[in-house]
Structure formats: structure tokens, C-alpha cells
């Protein structure tokens, strides 16, 4: 799996392994990141993403495999010698220094003269819209400003690679939304290769050119955000990226890559097969909430699709993200359906019976029982 075909590669991770005591944190992992791209590693906590990032930064030594940055192997290279800089989870701005001194810190280590590094620090602060803040103390800044200082402090060194360790995790929701956009713009403006780790799928989808979904030390899937969302390669990705309805059952028949899945209660639905799925096997299907169309009468549904019905359990109003939770008639299972923006269904009430249908192509089905 390669994220790029011919572009210059800035980071190559080659069969890297790391085991702590009896826990394999990173399991023979290989990937590469193209120059100038925004690459995210997405996974739940404990999946090994922090270990991977710290190996790239040089704070942890891999047990096996090689990490190459800008084509150069990093084996035995100390963290302060690598062409990589890191934005830490809690930012790790130096409280004993001013904002300007923080940004100039790395330049001073390279022996850049005092005037020159102050000038560069000022210019860099200007670029992240913090011009004139050089003399301020770190604790005078707001959360978002600190974020930008942390990034400026690294980018002023013009690293080959910028590593970001869930830097938005400490911010409140509103600021996080704002910083997402800002990060993306900064990356575009500087053109530096970003490697970003997060457990937040929305951050990964919004920010990245490519995302590696990590689970138990391995990549489940590596691809563009769109590919992850629309073409999940594994049940884990289907369940982790975006919201999804999960339905477990048995494959009744397969016709042209479309499987008919029957739940134990006898509810039948169609879904596109991914990987090897054969008739008679246990299978798990995933249907996106926005894939389903709603209707008050069966006749309101497109005629070529299988109609399903359910009782409205609750309406979850959340503006553009509003949805309705339906108890499917046959399986008595919960099914989430996105409400259309038209406001057509804004008057739904609990207990009402409703009909829905989805294109088999927009649902996926994997073999095996995937337990939540």
C-alpha cells in the first residue's frame, strides 16, 4: 500500500515493530508519506499510534524495521538530530520563556545569532497571525494562540516532517472546530509534510489527504478520507469512521456482489459484499444513516428498492445533523436514519410507523460476526 505513486516521499516506515512487555504496540507496519501531504493516523486510544509517532520522533526505538525521513535512515539518530519536529499533545510550550524565546529556541540551538533568530521568530509569528506577541508570556495566550505558537516553534526550523500528537485534544469543542480549519490552512500555506495522529475521525477526515486507520498495532486501511468513508475495507473501519448502522445476520444468497443478509429474526436486507463473503456464512452489514430514504407510506419509496419499516423511537434534532432512531419492525433492532434537510420529516413523533429503503450499493457487508 502506497500513498503515492511517483511524488517524492518524505517519510517511509518499513516493517517497524515495537513490543512493550507482552503487548505488541506496533506490529510490522509499513507505509510512506508523500512530500507536502497531510497524513493522519486515526485509531482508538491504545491502538499504538502514539508509539508509532514517538518512534518517528526518536523518543522510542523500534524493535525491528527502519524509519527513513527524506530518504535517510533514522536508526541510531537522536531526536535532537532528526529533521523532524513535533507538536506535543499538551503543546509543551516552555513556561520559563516568552513566546518569542519559545519560537527562537530551536534556532538558538543551531547557533543562529540573537538578532537573526529574533527577526525570524517575529516573522514566523507574523505568519501564524501572532505578530507582536513575541514579548508575551506563554500563559497570557489563549488556547488557540498557544496552538499556533507550538506550530510556529516547530515550523521555524523548516523540518522535513512535522509530527502532531493530538494537539487539538485539549481544546473545547468550538475552538477545536476552528483550529481544524486553521491547521489545514497552515499546512497548505507552508507546504510542510504533516503527520497527525488523532482518535477523532472527524479531524482525520477534514484535515487529511490520506488517513491510516490503525487498530491493534496495524493499519486496517490506508486511503483518502473518501475511500475510508465510502469503501471501508474492514468492519473495524466501517464501524470507526463515521456513524454506521451495524446489522448482524447470515448470508442467504449472493447475486452480482450483492448479498442478501437475514437477521436471526428474519429481517432481510441487501448490501454490497466486501472481501470473501459466501452464501450461508455469518455476516455483518453496515448501512450509513444518510444512505436511507424515508417515507410515511411504502408507496413513497423508490419502487426498485426493498422497503423496510419501523417505529419512530426518538427524533434527535441537531440542525443539519438531525436524525431519527427507528426500531426496525422485524428485528426490533435500532436503526439510525439521517433526516433530510428539506424539513419534510420535522414533524415526526415517537411511535409513528415509518418506511425506509436504501440502495444495496451504499451498504456494505463483511463475512463473520463483528461484535461491537
Amino acid at each position, binding site marked *: 500500500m502506497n500513498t503515492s505513486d511517483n511524488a517524492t516521499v518524505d517519510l517511509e516506515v518499513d516493517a517497524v515493530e515495537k513490543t512493550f512487555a507482552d503487548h505488541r504496540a506496533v506490529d510490522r507496519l509499513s507505509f510512506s508519506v508523500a512530500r507536502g501531504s497531510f497524513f493522519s493516523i486515526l485509531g482508538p486510544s491504545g491502538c499504538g499510534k502514539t508509539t508509532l509517532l514517538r518512534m518517528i520522533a526518536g523518543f522510542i526505538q523500534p524493535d525491528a524495521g527502519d524509519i527513513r525521513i527524506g530518504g535517510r535512515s533514522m536508526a541510531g539518530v537522536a531526536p535532537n538530530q532528526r529533521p523532524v519536529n513535533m507538536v506535543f499533545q499538551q503543546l509543551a510550550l516552555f513556561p520559563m520563556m516568552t513566546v518569542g524565546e519559545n519560537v527562537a529556541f530551536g534556532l538558538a540551538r543551531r547557533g543562529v545569532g540573537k538578532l537573526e533568530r529574533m527577526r525570524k521568530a517575529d516573522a514566523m509569528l507574523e505568519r501564524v497571525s501572532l505578530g507582536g506577541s513575541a514579548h508575551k508570556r506563554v500563559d497570557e495566550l489563549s488556547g488557540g494562540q498557544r496552538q499556533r505558537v507550538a506550530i510556529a516553534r516547530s515550523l521555524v*526550523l523548516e523540518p522535513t516532517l512535522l509530527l502532531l500528537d493530538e494537539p487539538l485534544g485539549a481544546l473545547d469543542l468550538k475552538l477545536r472546530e476552528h483550529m481544524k480549519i486553521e491547521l489545514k490552512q497552515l499546512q497548505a500555506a507552508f507546504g510542510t509534510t504533516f503527520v497527525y495522529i488523532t482518535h477523532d475521525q472527524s479531524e482525520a477526515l477534514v484535515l487529511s489527504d490520506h488517513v491510516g486507520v490503525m487498530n491493534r498495532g496495524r493499519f486496517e486501511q490506508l486511503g483518502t478520507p473518501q475511500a475510508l468513508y465510502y469503501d471501508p475495507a474492514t468492519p473495524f473501519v466501517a464501524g470507526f469512521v463515521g456513524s454506521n448502522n451495524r446489522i448482524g445476520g447470515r448470508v442467504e444468497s449472493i447475486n452480482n456482489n450483492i448479498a442478501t443478509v437475514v437477521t436471526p429474526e428474519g429481517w432481510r436486507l441487501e448490501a454490497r459484499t466486501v472481501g470473501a463473503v459466501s452464501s450461508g456464512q455469518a455476516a455483518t452489514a453496515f448501512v450509513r444513516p444518510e444512505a436511507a430514504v424515508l417515507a410515511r407510506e411504502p408507496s413513497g419509496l423508490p419502487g426498485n428498492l426493498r422497503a423496510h419499516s419501523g417505529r419512530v423511537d426518538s427524533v434527535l434534532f441537531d440542525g443539519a445533523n438531525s436524525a431519527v432512531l427507528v426500531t426496525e419492525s422485524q428485528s426490533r433492532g435500532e436503526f439510525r436514519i439521517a433526516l433530510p434537510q428539506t424539513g419534510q420529516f420535522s414533524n415526526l413523533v415517537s411511535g409513528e410507523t415509518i418506511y425506509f429503503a436504501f440502495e444495496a450499493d451504499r451498504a456494505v457487508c463483511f463475512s463473520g460476526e463483528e461484535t461491537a
Partner: protein
Amino acid sequence: MTASEPNWQRRLLLALLLAPALLWLLLLIVLPHVDLALVSFRERVAPREYVTSLAQYQTFFTEPLYWQIFVRTAVVSAIATAITLLIAFPVAWTIAKIAKGRRAALLFLVCLIPFWVSETVRTLGWMILLRESGVLPSFLVKLGLVSAPPELLYHDATILVGLVYTSLLFMVVPLVNSLESLDNALIEAAYDLGAGGLTVLRTIVIPHAAPGITAGCIVVFMLTLGNYLTPNLLGGTSSQWFTEQIYNQFITRFNWEQGAAFGFLLLALSTTMVWVGLKASGQRFADVMQRS
């Protein structure tokens, strides 16, 4: 104290709580020191007849022996403080940053144990180890390094060993506390930005630990300055420690006026150093004391 209570009840409660504090501080700290100051400013001209004068302080400055011992005490205390800091820092670093979990806690505990034992006992140990007939001299003879057992007691270096030994705890504890509060990510970030070990120490670790370092140094200097037992027993007659002069004047010669003046001079030196330490590191007295 909730606001709903009647006023007289609150006042009574406040008075009851204030009484012990004021009695303690006034009767045992403030008044005795005021009295000591008064005693130091008088001179006995005849039996039971005193006049106010600066004679006691004059004696101190005109008699070279006194102020030399005073300066010597201050200098040796400062050296002992510096050595204590140098010895304690790597230990504190190991406890706070290198050892993990239970091992760090155990190491810390082990460092504290000797200080649960009386200073008298610890000094006895050093005497048995160092005196001419003691353990180390006879060990040196056995090794063939010297032909006759050397006397290791009664040297300035011996006093320093004893003082440093006694002070270690008061340095290790504030250092460990301040180093533990240093986020490892700051060290990693500095490394990541290209700094080496010494630069990290200079630019990150020492500025962060400055409050702990100051607290430790102030306490150690003060305790060393006021120590009597260790210099007296390990230094013998040559120890020339200023507290011995105070003791001599007060208890041996019964010259309280001179002793009081000496006491005040020592107090002034100790207070000045505390003040200088606080100013130099820009800290508040209360914060520092709470740390140590």
C-alpha cells in the same frame, strides 16, 4: 463560619482560635527576641547595674577572633550548601525522572530513612568511622595505603562531610518535588527542537526547578549556620563555629549581653541570606516554606 451565625458567636470563636496563636507567637517568638535585642544593647558597668551601649557589637568588630569565626561559619556553611546541592541533584533527578513507579518511591523512602534517626546518632557513626582508632583509618592501614592510622576527625573537611550528610534530606525533598512537577514533554520538546542534555539542563530544568533549589539552599544554609552538634563533635576544639561562641558566652561565661549580641548577628546573617535567596529567585517566603 457561615454568615447566619450571630455576630457575638463569631467573635467569640475567632477570639478562641486567635488566642493560642497569639500567645505562642508573642510569648515565645516576638517578646523573647525583643528582649534579646535589649540585652544585646546593654553593658554591665557594675554588679546589677547596666547602661545602654553598643559595646557588645563593638567587641565583635574589634576582636578579630570573633568576626573571623563569624565569616568562617558563613563561608563553610555556603560551601556545605553548594556541595549538598551538587550531591543531591543527581539523586533527586533519578528519583523524579529516571526510576519508575515503585522503584522511585522505594529509593525516595530509603533516602529519607537516615533522617528519622537523631543527628546525635549519625554523628556518633561518623566519629566511630573517622577517628584515629576508627574504622576508616584502620581500613586504610589494612589496604596498605598508609603506614599509621591517620586522624580523620577534627579537620574542616570532616565538618563539611558531617554538615552535608545532615543536610541532604532538606535538599533532596524540595528538589524531588520541583523536578517531579516538570513535564517530561518539555524536555522532549527541547530535545526535539535540537537541544542537547546540557542545554536542556540550563534552559529548561534549572529555570523550572529554581523554586525548589532556592528552598533547599535556604533551609540547608540556615540549618548549617545554626548547627552546633556536628561542628562541635566532628571539628573538636578547632571547629570554631559561631554557635559555639554563643554557647560559650551564654552558658560558660554567663556573659549574656555578649551572647545576645552574637545571637543577633547570627540571626541577621541567616535572615539576610534567606532574603537574598528569595529576592534572587523572585519568590515569596510563604511559598518557599510550604515547599520544604
